[in-house]
């Protein structure tokens, strides 16, 4: 019987000098699900994701993809993982000297043996699905921030991956765009049926869009469960994170009323 988990991460450690960013992070990613990994800024979410994508090498720990452990001495398994997985960078990492169409076509052109006509057809299809076909000949710098995000997603899904890793896809966006990006991820995740792992710190959007939620704090996953379980969890860290907006409203209300605020630092 096939394993229900497409990706399993166990006890991941990563240290930069004296700073231990990951201290035993573990995560199970069910096949076909959309998982949101939450955490404060600097909690190590992006490092965690980059370790999964093989951009950063973890110090220790196990990453298994579709039942195969990914280790340095098994290049074939790693190559297979890369073929079946896409990574959407926070910065989009689009090739600024290539047009939108060339950006999308690049992974197909370089990693498959498809004829050029087929590559162009599939790339145009991906652009069309993300409503970018009219901008195929434009360069990334000629596109708006939202379009660039969609273009990066088009490039990520054109190879029809089974797993897409999203690194803070809504960082720096206004609330409307944030909603639009989460809607886009949820919509295409269902449409194409890939497994999605989204690293974010936008709690409300993540709770609505995702099937499961994990919370990374101090280098470990201190919570994993459904959005409902997250919403009712009594775990102190989860509660602090979840209720941070309410706490902010309360604090700001107190400031407006002129009450003395007890600082966290004091």
């Amino acid at each position, binding site marked *: 019987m096939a394993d229900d988990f497409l990706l399993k991460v166990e006890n991941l450690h990563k240290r930069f000098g004296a700073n231990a960013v990951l201290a035993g992070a573990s995560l199970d990613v069910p096949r076909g699900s959309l998982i949101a990994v939450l955490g404060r800024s600097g909690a190590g979410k992006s490092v965690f994701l980059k370790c999964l994508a093989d*951009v950063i090498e973890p110090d220790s720990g196990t990453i298994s993809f579709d039942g195969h452990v990914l280790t340095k001495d098994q290049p074939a398994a790693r190559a297979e993982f890369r073929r079946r997985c896409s990574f959407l960078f926070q910065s989009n990492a689009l*090739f600024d000297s290539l047009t939108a169409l060339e950006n999308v076509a690049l992974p197909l*052109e*370089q990693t498959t043996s498809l004829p050029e006509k087929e590559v162009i057809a599939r790339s145009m299809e991906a652009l069309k699905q993300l409503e970018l076909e009219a901008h195929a000949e434009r360069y990334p710098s000629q596109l708006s921030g939202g379009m660039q995000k969609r273009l990066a997603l088009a490039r990520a899904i054109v190879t029809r991956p089974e797993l897409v890793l999203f690194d803070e896809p809504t960082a720096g966006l206004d609330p409307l765009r944030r909603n639009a990006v989460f809607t886009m991820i949820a919509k295409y995740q269902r449409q194409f049926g890939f497994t999605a792992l989204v690293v974010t710190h936008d709690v409300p959007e993540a709770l609505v869009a995702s099937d499961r939620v994990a919370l990374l704090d101090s280098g470990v996953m201190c919570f994993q469960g459904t959005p409902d379980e997250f919403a009712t969890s009594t775990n102190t860290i989860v509660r602090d994170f979840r209720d941070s907006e309410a706490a902010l409203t309360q604090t700001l209300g107190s400031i407006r009323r002129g009450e003395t605020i007890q600082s966290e630092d004091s």
Partner: protein
Amino acid sequence: MVHSIGRSTLSFVQALGDLALFIGQSFRAALGSKKLFRRVVRAMFEQGVRCLPVILIVGMFTGLVLGLQGYYVLNRFGSESLLGTLVSLSIVRELGPVLAALMLVGQAGSALAAELGIQRNTEQIAALETMGVSSHGYLVAPRLIASLFVYPMQTALFCCIGLWGGSVSGSMLLGLEPGIYWSAVERAVETADVRECMIKALTFGLLTVALCAYHGFNAHRNRASTGARAVSASTTRAVVQSSIIVLAADYVITSFLI
């Protein structure tokens, strides 16, 4: 002091090893890289066509100055007829390959280091790796292969225009019979000189393009600076080290071939 000399030597040897691995890895990755020919042609355009004006201008003025200086020096001994010999041997054996390489480093090499540095900074190189595309094969190998064709061609053009510049100075401006100048050129330049010129051009091309690509590609490794400063620092290092290596390699090759 001994400690610091030892450390510097070790890091120099390590950097050399790193560079050699970088070149080897790039050529190996080229074997599996798709649509390589198209990218090689593009790199040839960047290194060749875009740098052509500077090569022609510098080659022309080098020949003009050599012709002018040489004519007056030889005139003192009544040997103006040897101007073609002086200009041709200076340009074909030394000035052609060295100055052409330095010009290419200044224009194409610096652009290459900066481009790769920015691609590293904006995670474009990491994006390639996550797609399963070899960044060495996609970005570096085409430039290295192109350099093997472009540098010899640019050097040959530099030499031709330089020789013509010498004839403009000597014959058209100072009155030396053109036939005397060109027959001296023909008699002086032998196959061995052209071979030496091409060996130098090939070596300089490979070394300088590899160095510039290496510094741009590894801009993130620079601990002293980050971001835009790291790109500017790596570009500067690429140009300075490439210029030094051209002159050092010139000395080594000349001492073996002379």
